[in-house]
């Protein structure tokens, strides 16, 4: 089975359409960033976020009022249900603004304030019995061993540890972390009515559970911001050097510049044009991806930066594959013009490009749909990045090299005498490349 059979598109001829498309995407992204900015995650913003899951739909307005009374008037409450997970339909997130001083917000007091407000709003009174929804496996095992509802006596051994484990697992995995009635645990293996009554006599059940509580001080946030930018710039610089070395030499450009004295900067660019074109393409990919983030309000967190750095590597890959083929064809095809050679190289590698991008796209698409809310922004970045990264190899990087070649007056046909493959003259002509 084969998708493309000897494709023969004129890529370089269509270059101006690609550049236009890129400019439009960049402009849209830029406009969105000016208008609504980028949404930063708590890693970079700082502040406090508390995620809460409710057994029943939460009274958000009353909660807002209660928090205001408790001194947290500046906090925001958002519903964060994930469409892929029906158990999350009652989840909310409370975001408390960042503190002015260097210290992180006191998570303990904030958490306590929120819990007190929640109890009041839900009309429950905090009982002195510990909450089953927050108990740990070890504590539960300790209680069960002491109470011994299965009357095992000295031969209890590991049984209560395993039972506690199974109960906690059922609570967290099967019931989404909230149990509203102890009878929901009837189906757990090893549970008898005696166990249920032991649980209900010792533990209470609140209608909410805190899934995640996080606070980040402003110094950490700004530190991370600087480091994220540094890491991206260093990675780009590293790639520039690597690709420039791998694809070096003005000889590759087949310039007809005998007797001319070019501006020194042009000579440097001749040397590293392949690397430069690749890096410009990658930069373009990152900017477009950020533009999409601005449009969709996905939060930029540390893991999203990880995705951006990965797609920097990925987009490079793609461009390198085409450039590799261009270099090989420059040696073999002596009569074609530079743009024609580039076209042919892209056509020859088209199958491989579409396939790998397609496969990577498939895997990150699976991750986007099945990977859960924590990774969603990450997988969104990868999905956009894979598409744009593939496109930028033939849409941006290759046209840049071709345009530079034209600007430097090269790309014409080969000199009069055909050079025999393997001869000394050929070795002289093209910089030493690993013999394939």
């Amino acid at each position, binding site marked *: *089975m084969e998708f493309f059979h000897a494709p023969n598109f004129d890529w370089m001829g269509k270059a101006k359409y690609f550049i236009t498309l890129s400019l439009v995407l960049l402009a849209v992204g830029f406009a969105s960033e000016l208008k609504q900015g980028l949404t930063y995650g708590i890693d970079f913003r700082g502040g406090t976020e508390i995620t809460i899951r409710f057994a029943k739909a939460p009274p958000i307005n009353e909660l807002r009022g209660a928090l205001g009374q408790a001194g947290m008037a500046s906090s925001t409450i958002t519903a964060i249900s994930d469409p892929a997970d029906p158990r999350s339909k009652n989840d909310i997130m409370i975001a408390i603004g960042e503190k002015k001083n260097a210290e992180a917000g006191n998570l303990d007091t904030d958490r306590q304030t929120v819990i007190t407000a929640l109890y009041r709003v839900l009309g429950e009174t905090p009982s002195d019995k510990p909450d089953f929804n927050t108990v740990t496996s070890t504590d539960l095992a300790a209680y069960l061993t002491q109470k011994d509802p299965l009357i095992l006596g000295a031969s209890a051994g590991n049984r209560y540890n395993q039972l506690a484990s199974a109960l906690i697992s059922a609570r967290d995995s099967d019931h989404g972390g909230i149990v509203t009635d102890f009878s929901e645990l009837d189906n757990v293996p090893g549970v008898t009515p005696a166990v249920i009554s032991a649980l209900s006599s010792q533990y209470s059940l609140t209608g909410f559970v805190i899934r995640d509580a996080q606070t980040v001080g402003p110094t950490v946030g700004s530190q991370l911001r600087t480091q994220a930018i540094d890491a991206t710039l260093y*990675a780009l610089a590293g790639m520039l050097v690597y690709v420039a070395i791998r694809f070096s030499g003005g000889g590759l450009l087949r310039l007809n510049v005998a007797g001319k004295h070019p501006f020194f900067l042009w000579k440097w660019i001749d040397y590293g044009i392949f690397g430069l074109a690749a890096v410009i393409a990658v930069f373009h990919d990152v900017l477009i991806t950020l533009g999409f983030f601005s449009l969709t309000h996905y939060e930029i967190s540390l893991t999203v930066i990880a995705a951006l750095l990965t797609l920097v590597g990925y987009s490079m*890959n793609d461009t390198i594959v085409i450039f590799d083929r261009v270099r090989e064809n420059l040696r073999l095809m002596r009569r074609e013009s530079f743009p024609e050679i580039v076209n042919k190289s892209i056509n020859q590698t088209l199958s491989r490009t579409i396939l790998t991008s397609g496969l990577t796209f498939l895997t990150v698409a699976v991750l986007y749909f099945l990977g859960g809310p924590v990774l969603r922004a990450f997988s969104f970045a990868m999905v956009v990045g894979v598409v744009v990264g593939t496109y930028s190899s033939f849409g941006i990087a290759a046209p840049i090299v071709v345009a530079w070649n034209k600007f430097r007056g090269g790309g014409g046909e080969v000199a009069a005498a055909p050079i025999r493959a393997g001869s000394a003259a050929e070795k002289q002509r093209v910089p030493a490349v690993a013999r394939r």
Partner: protein
Amino acid sequence: MAAGVSNQLKYKFGFIVIVILCCLMGIMCISASGFNFPTSPTQLKNNVADRIHLGLDLAGGSYLVVQVQLDDAIRQNTDQAVDLIKDQARSQNISIGEVSEQPDNTQIAVHNVDPNAAGKFHDIITNQLPDWTVSPLAGEPNGYLLTYPPTAIAALRSKTMEDALETITRRIDALGLTEPTVQFTGRAPDEIIVELPGEGDPARAKSVISEGGQLELTLLSDPQPYASEAEALAAHNGVLPAGTEILPGLPNAGGQSTSTSTAYFVVDRAAIVTGKDLEDASPAPSTTYPGQYDVNFVLSNAGAGRFGPFTEENVGKYLAIVLDGKVQEYAVIKSRIDNNGMIEGNFSQQDAQDLSLVLKSGALPAPIKYIAEDTIGASLGADSIRDGVRASIGSIIVVMIFLVIYYRLSGVNAVVALILNLVILVAAMAYFGAVLTLPGIAGVILTIGMGVDSNVLVFERIREELRGGKAPAAAVDVGFEKAFLTIIDTHVTTVVSAVFLFLFGTGPVKGFAITLTIGLIANLFTSIYVSRAIFDLHLSHMKRDEPLSV
């Protein structure tokens, strides 16, 4: 066409089988106590769980970022030097004027040193403050400027961090939590990360870590509390006796008063015994106040050697127990005390336990602040595991189906290489004891997507060569040869990205960088060596003129 399987091919497959066995062994047979062949399913599960730890975002737990206030440590160091100069000058009868600390906390100006005692003064500095450099004070013939040089400052900062790490580690260990981690972040020089897997409420751990823990036993100069610093000063006509200082104290430190406001005490500055002389501390039920607990402490021999004579000399005077610069308790010395004592203070059992723990672990070398914190509930962790596993299986299935449909029998080759790739990845993580995080699982999925690229590169090249008319064996040869450098190139660029991510990222992101890097390196092995071996095996069994299924 070679008939049968050549020796070289046999060695190749032998090597591959050995690699597989090593991997499986690494995953299944190594437990916390060493090599341990599993004899039951539970033991197998335990072995795997021992080697592959789940990160906090999958297991649930607490994560604290502690910032050590290094500037305070520098200032404390300078304060101590000032105290030492004054004390030594007094005891050696060297007349000196004002000793003042400069605003940047690393310089001390000593004014009006008696010119005749200049030599002795210099000796004091050389012997007792060797890290400080002495230079004349500008504009004063008898003044000196002591400077703590940058090299010493840097050394002090790093020593403070080491001590802080050790102390915090000891305290966390003493709390008896499951598998805590305490380490430097590597990102900022003054930060320490504490990870407490499974800990849903880190309040106790936080208070234990942040307590200073500096214990001092010293004499009360005045056997009575004052209501304010001004009052204490007034009782001495505005000038404190030499060698004393005013410290705040707990209101009922003497056990008699029931007032709740802070009291002030005049105490001797030089402590006879400090926390360093403590050998042990433990909680014990109080005999005087039933229901409360005290902290009993035992001094080391060196400490007892000083404390015994001291208490004997000072019977009738008041001993003050100072904790973190506050007078915790004071009582009259009834008789000589050699090596043990008791701290009373309305402690509950847990308070007494925590204080004992803090005292035993030693004082923090500098105060700390919490600059970031995250508590992940177990149910969120369970959801993340479920999502991660689902996405992994989904992507493996999708890729496998595609490969087999598009490349037919060679697709099966690629699938085998992919599975082996994942096995090696998991085994490498088990060998290194790496931590698996949710982004780490994403890294595995990316390895699947990107790793297949290598196979695709080779197969497309083989197809091209076959189209050009080459025989299957030659096509496979050329395919691998031509694709080799491109495969290396593409893996290098992604691994370079991953290295930068590892250097700068925090825990979960580091996990991603690790799985991606290991996965891609393993992929080099499976897509080049293993795939080639499978092709060679297939070729050696192919009949003449049979087309290659790719």
